[in-house]
């Protein structure tokens, strides 16, 4: 699937409008996700980039109704039905019917008391109503599809007997067992070694193509997104600040935060004399500033930035930015 997907997606698979995630306690109220808009096209891999605290993982969890205790989501969430029409859905009830999730840490996300074959078969049993024997055959097929060697034997293994890469493959097989049309990936390769990470990225990419499955891939690692995503949305302080086709984003970033992120991490194929970090810290989600939330760390800040709307502007040629200054920023491609 190398076709570029236009931002003005005619018939998206998933549409998220004005998503807010709020955590309330007796005295405080925090809204770490504060107005996120996203669309995912059928078959598209959308990358969601950002640093810790940007709200990227919470956005993903809110889509599937898996928020941590105390969190509540508000917003318009729609998922395409069988006829392709977007229908509002209840995040708490959507699990297993069209969406599933792959987590970062395969050791803690897999049930340690179940043989991996049984665990994978469970999805087919519950969501597709298969008999146990059929589901087991299906599980072995899925294990073969995700590249687990000798799946018949491996199906009898316990999670602790597997290496990190195999565990992550088991988790992907588990996620596939409900035949999802959208796979939500929360840093699925961050805990893996480079050579294994590469294998898992290739696997996910192949699965997306073969199954015509969409993906939202959350990570802080831009090179990983450069290699897997069709389109990338960059999050900062609770909102999307820039969205663009992946190659275009790296060629010509339009938001100073994207630009800074690109130039602050050392990158293996770009040798820069000195790294440019980002001064300061992201704003406190309890007291987000009124205007641009990146303004006090931005090296391109100008008059008016503190009152500028902190929202993605108009999407032109599949690209949008929350920066009101029309800057000519240097990319890395």
């Amino acid at each position, binding site marked *: 699937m190398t076709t570029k997907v236009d931002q003005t997606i005619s018939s998206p698979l998933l549409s998220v409008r004005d998503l807010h995630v709020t955590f309330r306690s007796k005295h405080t109220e925090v809204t770490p996700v504060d107005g996120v808009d996203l669309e995912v096209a059928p078959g598209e891999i959308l990358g969601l980039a950002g640093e810790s605290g940007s709200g990227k993982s919470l956005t993903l969890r809110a889509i599937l109704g898996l928020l941590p205790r105390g969190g509540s989501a508000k917003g318009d969430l729609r998922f395409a039905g069988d006829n392709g029409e977007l229908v509002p859905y209840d995040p708490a009830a959507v699990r297993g019917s069209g969406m599933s999730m792959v987590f970062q840490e395969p050791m803690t996300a897999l049930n340690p008391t179940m043989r991996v074959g049984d665990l994978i078969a469970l999805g087919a049993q519950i969501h597709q109503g298969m008999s146990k024997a059929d589901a087991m055959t299906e599980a072995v097929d899925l294990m073969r599809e995700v590249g687990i060697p000798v799946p018949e034997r491996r199906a009898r293994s316990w999670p602790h007997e597997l290496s990190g890469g195999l565990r992550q493959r088991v988790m992907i097989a588990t996620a596939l067992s409900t035949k999802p049309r959208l796979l939500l990936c929360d840093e699925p390769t961050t805990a893996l070694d480079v*050579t294994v*990470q*590469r294998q898992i990225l*290739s696997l996910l990419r192949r699965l997306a193509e073969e199954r015509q499955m969409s993906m939202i891939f959350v990570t802080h690692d831009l090179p990983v997104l*450069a290699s897997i995503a069709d389109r990338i949305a960059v999050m900062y302080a609770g909102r999307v600040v820039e969205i663009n086709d992946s190659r275009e984003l790296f060629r010509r970033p339009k938001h100073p935060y994207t630009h800074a*992120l690109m130039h602050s*991490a*050392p990158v293996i194929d770009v040798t820069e004399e000195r790294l440019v970090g*980002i001064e300061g810290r992201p704003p406190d989600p309890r007291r987000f500033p009124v205007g641009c939330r990146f303004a006090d760390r931005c090296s391109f800040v100008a008059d008016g930035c503190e009152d500028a709307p902190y929202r993605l502007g108009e999407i032109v040629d599949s690209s949008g930015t929350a920066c009101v200054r029309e800057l000519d920023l240097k990319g890395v491609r």
Partner: protein
Amino acid sequence: MTGLLELENLSVRFNVGGSLFGRFGNSSTTLTAVDSVTFSAEPGRSIGIVGESGCGKSTLAKALIGLVSYEGVLRFDGAELKARRTKQLRRQIQMVFQDPGSSLNPALTPRQTLSELLKIHEMVPVDAIDDRCAELIDLVELPARVLDVQPRSLSGGQRQRIGLARALALEPSVLIADESVAALDVSVQASILNLISDLKEELNLTLLFISHDLAVIRHMADEVVVMYLGGMVEHGSVAEVFDDPQHPYTQALLASAPRLKRDLTDETPIIGEPPSPLDLPPGCRFAGRCPQAFDLCHTERPPLYSHDHGSAACFLLSDSNE
């Protein structure tokens, strides 16, 4: 060799029980975490040590600062250094750890941590300790007020700076940074990496920079040592190793790294995962995953062959060595 720090066949072995009771009987097996590592670090150089988890890079670091005992020879400034060493020698090699949250004593303020060190090692007269603390905190570019707060109220980047100040308090000649930025956000990483580079120049430190992150190694190091399952597979200047890797493992590692300028290709450069360090193959440790392995690789361990711009432990290079 004229290195400040010289390693000659340095190995670290752990006894691990085959079963719960094995370790009390005779059935214990040996895990070789670091196997015959040999290299030397010239004064002021920055050596990167790179490899995947379980390759022994952190154990090597622990051996160098004397936290685990080792076999082979370690020399500092020409004199042999044992794992148990005098205070004077301990001071010379200092380390910044990966997780600044758990490597700082949570009950002590940075001032207390630093003062204690300065006192025990008699770095400055007692009445100059406060001044020295202020100097150190300034050295790592933190405001002086940070000296008197609890570590938990500091950010990850600030804590890592305190970890750096603690290591530098003992005025070492060799600084080991073990995954020192792995736990930090990219924007914070940049400032810590810049700070380490600056301090290295300013204080003329010899730097051993350990990381799994190829990009960070390329940025920080002059030379690089690539490790796989405890053994050293390649050594050379950073530019040469990254642009023209000789060992098939280094080649696979570099080809696997995600790059900003390249899309994912369909072929996977390398399949499988490393074998268990308890059950190592008799020949080359990489042979099972190596696309170029031949019969000899499965039976014999390749030595380090030197070539024009470095050395690599691979039989493919044996011709050019003769």
